[in-house]
């Protein structure tokens, strides 16, 4: 490695993360002196929004990549940073009533959310397997705790335990993979790994493949792709619902983003060797996700399985390994994160009465009593199912189209078939809302203005992407092609 690396450069490269972390720590300090906590955190939303503005400006003005040995900050990373902070802001906006209801300690929870977001940001901007691993662990450790935040609920404990043990287990494999990689290639830097591969591409040893395979598996675990998905339905069901929404957005986006970056920067020469593995796992993931989601009685668990199936669709785009495929993944992640955040929020709003049941019956006649809420939920479900006017349709369509273009006919057909199955369980929610009679005793739903604002914003994003998908695709495409300009 280079003899000296300018520390200031590194600090500069990580400025967004550092700002985020500083605010998190500042909050912790201020929190000691203030009795009314929730309001403080709410007001920090403004800061989050400022960060987004800052990043957006950076993204738009970005001309060249900031590259230090450990980090490479390009518009690809900025894109994901914006996504993560947006998810964070949405999580704060949308979780208020839940925290009031369950009396979860707000300061700790929000601090952990901040830290895990920072971990995701480090992960995505890393240009080195070690730093990436650190970011991943920072993110995961916070998530393990968040999953178990409902300490009195047995399900929450159980989900956290399963998530933690399996997560640590898979971390062990990932770490061993990185180690072997380090041993084989002599470096952990993405670009250096790529150089090494280009020099010795004709005689890659078996240990190299084991290392690569273990790294892949580490990511498959984070994608929750079959057969490494077992933790996800249980952890999702057990976790506090706003946290579940967060789970389905940030870690997944971080994993996919980092994986794309590694594929493009470190593994461009061997990526075709992973094709079959990716393909089989993609098919299995779509299949299991959709088939089992069909069987669910609980909306929350259905959404958990649906997020597995969406990971499958995203993996289809990974198989395609074209620029179009990668940029559609980025667009997909925006739409999917925002939609899921909204859907989980409505799920917890509707299921006030008995935490944990989340049954479809709770939605009966929602449209007559709360037409606006029902409209939002219908929009989210339509977007998740991928029905035309929404962003969900276009992103799915782009992946489908990229698969067709890359002659992955089987994948494209299976994807279409599985999405057709998925329509059933998403529309089931709508059927319950609009076509079943309202039960006689109905507990009122208490929401607040933040939640309403969050829901409006999320549906706006879905609609805006549905209105001008091409524009957004060019934007994400620019981000993806920006990774390639590494030195």
């Amino acid at each position, binding site marked *: 490695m280079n003899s000296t690396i300018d520390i200031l450069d590194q600090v500069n490269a990580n400025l967004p993360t550092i700002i985020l972390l500083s605010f998190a720590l500042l909050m912790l300090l201020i929190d000691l002196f203030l009795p009314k906590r929730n309001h403080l955190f709410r007001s920090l939303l403004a800061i989050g929004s400022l960060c987004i503005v800052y990043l957006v400006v950076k993204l738009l003005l970005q001309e060249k990549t900031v590259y230090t040995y450990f980090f490479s900050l390009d518009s690809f990373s900025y894109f994901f940073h914006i996504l993560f902070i947006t998810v964070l802001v949405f999580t704060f906006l949308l979780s208020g009533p839940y925290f009031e209801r369950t009396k979860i300690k707000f300061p700790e929870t929000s601090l952990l959310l901040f830290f895990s977001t920072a971990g995701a940001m480090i992960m995505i901007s890393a240009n080195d397997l070690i730093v990436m691993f650190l970011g991943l662990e920072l993110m995961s450790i916070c998530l393990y705790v968040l999953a178990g935040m409902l300490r009195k609920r047995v399900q929450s404990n159980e989900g956290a335990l399963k998530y933690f043990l399996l997560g640590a287990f898979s971390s062990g494999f990932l770490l061993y993979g990185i180690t072997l990689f380090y041993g084989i290639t002599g470096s952990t830097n993405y670009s250096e790994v790529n150089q090494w591969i280009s020099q010795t591409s004709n005689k890659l040893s078996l240990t190299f493949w084991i290392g690569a395979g273990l790294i892949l598996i580490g990511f498959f675990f984070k994608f929750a792709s079959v057969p490494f998905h077992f933790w996800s339905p*249980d952890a999702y069901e057990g976790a506090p619902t706003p946290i579940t929404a967060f789970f389905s957005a940030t870690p997944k986006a971080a994993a996919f983003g980092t994986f794309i970056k590694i594929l493009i920067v470190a593994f461009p020469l061997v990526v075709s060797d992973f094709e079959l593995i990716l393909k089989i796992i993609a098919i299995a993931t779509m299949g299991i996700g959709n088939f089992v989601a069909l069987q669910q009685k609980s909306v929350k668990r259905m959404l958990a399985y649906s997020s597995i199936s969406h990971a499958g669709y995203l993996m289809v785009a990974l198989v395609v390994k074209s620029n179009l495929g990668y940029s559609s993944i980025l667009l997909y992640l925006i739409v999917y994160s925002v939609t899921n955040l909204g859907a989980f929020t409505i799920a917890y709003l509707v299921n006030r009465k008995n935490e944990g049941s989340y049954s479809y019956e709770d939605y009966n006649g929602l449209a007559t009593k709360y037409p606006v809420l029902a409209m939002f939920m219908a929009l989210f479900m339509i977007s998740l199912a991928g029905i035309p006017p929404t962003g969900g349709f276009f992103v799915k369509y782009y992946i489908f189209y990229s698969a067709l273009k890359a002659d992955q006919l089987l994948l494209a057909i299976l994807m279409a078939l599985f999405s057709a199955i998925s329509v059933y369980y998403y529309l089931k929610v709508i059927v319950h809302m609009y076509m079943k009679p309202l039960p006689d005793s109905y507990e009122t739903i208490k929401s607040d203005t933040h939640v309403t604002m969050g829901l409006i914003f999320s549906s706006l994003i879905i609609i805006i992407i549905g209105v001008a998908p091409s524009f957004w695709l060019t934007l994400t495409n620019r981000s993806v092609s920006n990774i390639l300009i590494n030195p």
Partner: protein
Amino acid sequence: MSEITIHHYIALSAIIFSIGVAGVLTRKNAIILFMSIELMLNSSNLALIAFASFMSNPVGQIFALFVIAVAAAEVGVGLAIIVTVYRNRNSINIDDVHLMKG
């Protein structure tokens, strides 16, 4: 055996790694399971330092240091989670924890 080479160290680490995997797959006690995971992390540390030593490249050492720190953080969080499970269920047998399925 002529000379201790990198082969031996890597093989040793692979053996310890597999013992860790075996522990995870066969034991039901959450704490012992967790210790097995620690074995796995430790085995990669061994491999890291062996590689670093044979390459005269300090990165491996630094990474190993980081891994120890990560392991410490994981142990803290993991034990806390196990204790919460114990508080609610009075057991840390992972087979007793299967409320959610299907």
